Structures are given as structure tokens and as C-alpha cells.
């Protein structure tokens, strides 16, 4: 499994979407991959997003199952540090504590963390 780590906030340059593009790149070539949201990357997961000049990331994430990307994970400690409750997140995100996140990274055969 290729693990793509989303750790940048949304709508502050191209980081979030260029990182997502790597995941889509693997997916369109039929490779198994998953997304992991940590640090300020967890802001990308908020349900209510209304960007004015960039594409809506939450809508992009809704397309992931169409690309065959079934698994998206988020670190519990990153949410807690930012005061974000799980109910505020878009659907389909599995919240893991740090130990499980470490295990996930260890299990991945490739890690892309821009």
C-alpha cells in the first residue's frame, strides 16, 4: 500500500492538492493507496468548506472511492490539538491514535509526505 500523508492546511498554496494528485496518480494506475491526515492537514477534512478561488477539497475527497481509494485516516492527536471534533469531519474518515498511525506508516510499502 502506498501511503500519502496530507499534512498541510487547505487553501494555502498548492500543497494539499499536489499531494492529493500523487494519490490519484497511483490510483489511476490501479495501485493500492491510502491517505493519512496529520498536523495542519486535518483542517482539510472539515465538512463545511466554501473556498472562493480554489477547488473545494472536501468535494475532491468525496470522489476518492471512484478512484478506488477506500481508506482515509486521520490522527486523533492532531484533531485534539486543534480543538476539532470528529463530528466536524467529512464522512468516511477513520480516526486513529498516534500508535496506530505509526503502525500504518510502518506497514506502507511507500510513503509520500510532501
Amino acid at each position: 500500500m502506498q501511503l500519502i500523508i496530507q499534512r498541510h492546511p487547505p487553501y494555502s498554496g498548492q500543497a494539499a492538492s499536489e499531494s492529493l494528485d500523487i494519490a490519484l496518480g497511483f490510483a489511476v494506475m490501479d495501485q493500492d493507496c491510502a491517505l493519512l491526515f496529520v498536523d495542519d492537514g486535518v483542517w482539510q477534512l472539515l465538512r463545511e468548506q466554501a473556498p472562493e478561488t480554489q477547488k473545494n477539497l472536501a468535494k475532491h475527497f468525496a470522489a476518492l472511492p471512484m478512484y478506488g481509494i477506500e481508506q482515509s485516516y486521520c490522527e486523533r492527536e492532531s484533531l485534539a490539538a486543534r480543538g476539532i471534533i470528529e463530528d466536524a469531519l467529512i464522512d468516511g474518515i477513520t480516526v486513529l491514535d498516534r500508535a496506530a498511525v505509526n503502525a500504518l506508516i510502518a506497514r506502507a510499502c511507500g510513503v509520500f509526505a510532501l
Partner: protein
Amino acid sequence: MADIYDHEGFLLDPSMWTEEMARDIACGEGVDMSEAHWQVVRLARQFYEEFEMSPNMRPLVNYVKRHLGPDYGNSMYLMRLFNGSAAKLTSKIAGLPKPSNCL
């Protein structure tokens, strides 16, 4: 005409799209629009509205499969409809941007 389309013939503004335009673009690509074509083209537009991106081949297949079932949602069927270039032509006829360069 020049400023409605980009250098590759993709519509610049998806909201400008009309069915008549779609017929013209299709015609220029050697595609004669049947109800089967319209079904897929409309789904591509729905995909764009839902996810804010043009579908590449894999998501297009899955999206068509989700809405019309596996008889339609498979690459053989879509490739036959759109002369072997399903993702690119579907977006073009649907007035959407070309599916991402990088992918």
C-alpha cells in the same frame, strides 16, 4: 469562436455548455451522439458538479457503474462508445476541462 474553446478544443467555461455545442464537438471528433452517449456525457457533467474535477478513466467507469450498473460501467463499453478515448472525449463533449495533465 476562438475564445469559447481552448487550444485543444475544450470549452473554457463549463457553465456555457449547451447540448447543441456538445453535438458539434462530438461531430468534430467523429462521434454521432446517441442516447447511450448522452447518458455518459450527462453523468460526466454530474461528476464534475459533485466533485469539482473532470473524471479520468477509472473514476468515470466507476461512476457510470454506480449510476447505470456494470453493463454500462466498464471500460470496453465506454471505449467503444467514444472511439477508444473515453475519458478525454467525454469531458470534451461534456464541456468540461481536460482531465488532469499529470494523471
